[in-house]
């Protein structure tokens, strides 16, 4: 039922009741003869809707006050859309060759805004397609590592004891691996192209970005696992968890329904930051030639191609580099904004 304005000509029962209550309240609190304040009366008769504001509504308000984060989010959304609609937006295909314009510096003729490389491929198009690959990899990494890390950390933190010990020692083991060396080895074996997965009845082709994403996720889940474990360790001592248990909730219900929602803030923040570092690491892999293979483009491999040509063709390193810087900066700002917004202990945004 919605609130009726006071001017409504057909008074509902509820309005009547409210008016009667208001009259009673006035009679009770006021000396006889005293005239009630008119705005008070108005409040009574229109009724003040107490709007239930969820944690999310508060978080959204706090986030929107964070201007840099909002601007960064806009930038990210635009870049994301460009990546998704790369075939429609890019003026050329990533491997289209324009023999009339080899090593062309940025120019308006032929819309080579970012110039062309020594094969005459349009660099704007290659950056756009590279962006698509890189974001796709980063998204896979963030999704997989967050899901796996959260599940593992939650189980470790909730049950504690030997389960915690086992899972956390496993986490430590992964952390002790020399990251780049493992990545290069894994990428050398699995990441040199699309992978045919043959599991009897279940056979499919995994596109290369997905393979690279899975390899990266293998190293990226440890951080989130530790964070979630820590949060669960403190959450499980909370009284509302005991209350849920006393109300007959089982372990899974307590973990998923009562504890996980309390950890969403840090998890989301961490996931955004994982996206940023995944982009950087994927770029590093591609730069070293172990990532996405040509002629497909990835931001990292574009920079690698460019640096081989020397300083004369400065546009070949500058533009893909700029894109990486912009994305990572924007993601970090959004992460900052989210952290401030999702921290329930904080009611005001920092300036």
């Amino acid at each position, binding site marked *: 039922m919605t609130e009726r304005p006071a001017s409504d000509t057909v008074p509902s029962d509820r309005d009547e009741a409210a008016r009667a209550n208001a009259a009673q309240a006035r009679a009770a609190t006021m000396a006889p003869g005293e005239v009630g304040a008119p705005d008070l009366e108005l409040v009574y008769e229109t009724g003040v809707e107490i709007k239930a504001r969820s944690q999310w509504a508060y978080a959204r308000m706090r986030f929107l006050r964070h201007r840099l984060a909002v601007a960064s989010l806009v930038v990210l959304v635009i870049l994301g859309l460009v990546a998704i609609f790369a075939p429609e937006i890019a003026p050329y295909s990533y491997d289209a060759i324009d023999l009339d314009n080899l090593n062309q510096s940025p120019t308006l003729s032929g819309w080579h805004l970012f110039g062309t490389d020594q094969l005459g491929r349009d660099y704007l198009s290659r950056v756009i397609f590279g962006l698509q690959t890189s974001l796709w990899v980063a998204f896979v990494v963030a999704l997989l590592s967050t899901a796996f890390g959260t599940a593992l950390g939650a189980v470790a933190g909730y049950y504690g004891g030997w389960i915690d010990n086992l899972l956390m020692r496993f986490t430590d083991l992964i952390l002790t691996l020399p990251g780049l060396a493992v990545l290069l080895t894994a990428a050398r074996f699995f990441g040199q192209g699309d992978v045919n997965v043959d599991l009897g009845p279940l056979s499919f082709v995994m596109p290369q970005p997905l393979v690279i994403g899975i390899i990266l996720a293998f190293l990226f889940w440890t951080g989130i696992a530790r964070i979630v474990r820590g949060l669960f360790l403190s959450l499980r001592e909370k009284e509302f968890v005991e209350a849920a248990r006393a109300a007959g909730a089982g372990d899974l219900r307590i973990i998923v329904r009562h504890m996980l929602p309390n950890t969403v803030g840090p998890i989301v923040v961490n996931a955004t930051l994982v996206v940023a570092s995944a982009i950087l690491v994927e770029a590093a892999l591609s730069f070293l030639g172990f990532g996405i293979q040509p002629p497909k483009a990835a931001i990292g491999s574009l920079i690698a191609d460019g640096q081989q040509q020397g300083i004369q063709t400065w546009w070949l390193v500058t533009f893909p580099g700029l894109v990486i810087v912009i994305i990572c900066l924007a993601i970090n700002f959004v992460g900052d904004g989210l952290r401030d917004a999702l921290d*329930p202990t904080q009611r005001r945004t920092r300036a």
Partner: protein
Amino acid sequence: MPEAVLSIRDLTVEFDTEDGVVHAVTDVSWDLYPGEVLGVIGESGSGKSVSLLSILGLIPMPPGRIVRGEAVFKGRDLLKLSGRELRQIRGGDIAMIFQDPMTSLNPVLKIGDQIAEAILAHNPRLTKEEARRRTIELLSLVGVPGAEQRYDQYPHEFSGGMRQRAMIAMAIANSPSVLVADEPTTALDVTIQAQIIEVLRTAQRETNAAIVLITHDLGLIAELADRVVVMYAGRVVEQADVLTIFDSPRHPYTIGLMKSLARLEREQEWLEPIPGQPPSLITLPPGCAFHPRCLHSRGRARCRSEVPPLREIGEGASHLSACHFAEELTGAQYTAGAGVERGT
């Protein structure tokens, strides 16, 4: 007398700690009858909460350990049930109200959803809509105004009293036959306490549940309880109906509690505290655990050597005391409290 809905026998709970074994609850026995309010009183650490949490499987094990005893609820021993069976009972037939409503509600879930979830957990056949309607009924019942709108609010939008009402609504959601209220008013303002007592009464009328009221607030006991179990250092030291406990307590500890209570109708210049500290539950004093603080023992050897059993004394079978010399404690100088001793 009707059959007890919950009867605890010789319940003994220990905790293994680095400093030694904590004897949290030792040989506790009592019966709870349908529709009554059983008050369990005692100082912090006297085992009142642990005894109830342990039979519901809510103490961490390890380090906790139920050494012996049984807790028969509707013909079944709760201590022998599997985790799944116990979960069915928790929140269903036996529900709990916790001390601090500020921390017992999940801050990120809507109040209504939390109550509805408790309903759905025990009635999987209900639809969400039915659970919502029932929740709103319950919220109105415990005196939350505008329950329809309040359903969608979060705990931080509720005041302490309103939260405790919501907790009570959640506890009675599945019409339990036993309601365990663990210090339900301790965290609240005095004015709110009176309201919550009223809500508890309503809740009991509505569900006809037997209530176990764990508290150290004697005022709350006087207000609500029918019978009282007094605990000290993990043991039951006295048990009687509420009038008997207040009028003629027969254990020096209970007498000490009564004397330390501020009363308006008497002119008291000082409250009389019980001397000393509660004993360590790791190294309990030999014999009667209360003897080092007891004003009545007067150094008698028996108090130091022999653990006094809980036995029937005096008028009728309903008054039990665990003092070797309970019969000596009938004089007016004990029951009338400080006033008499000051010679008025």
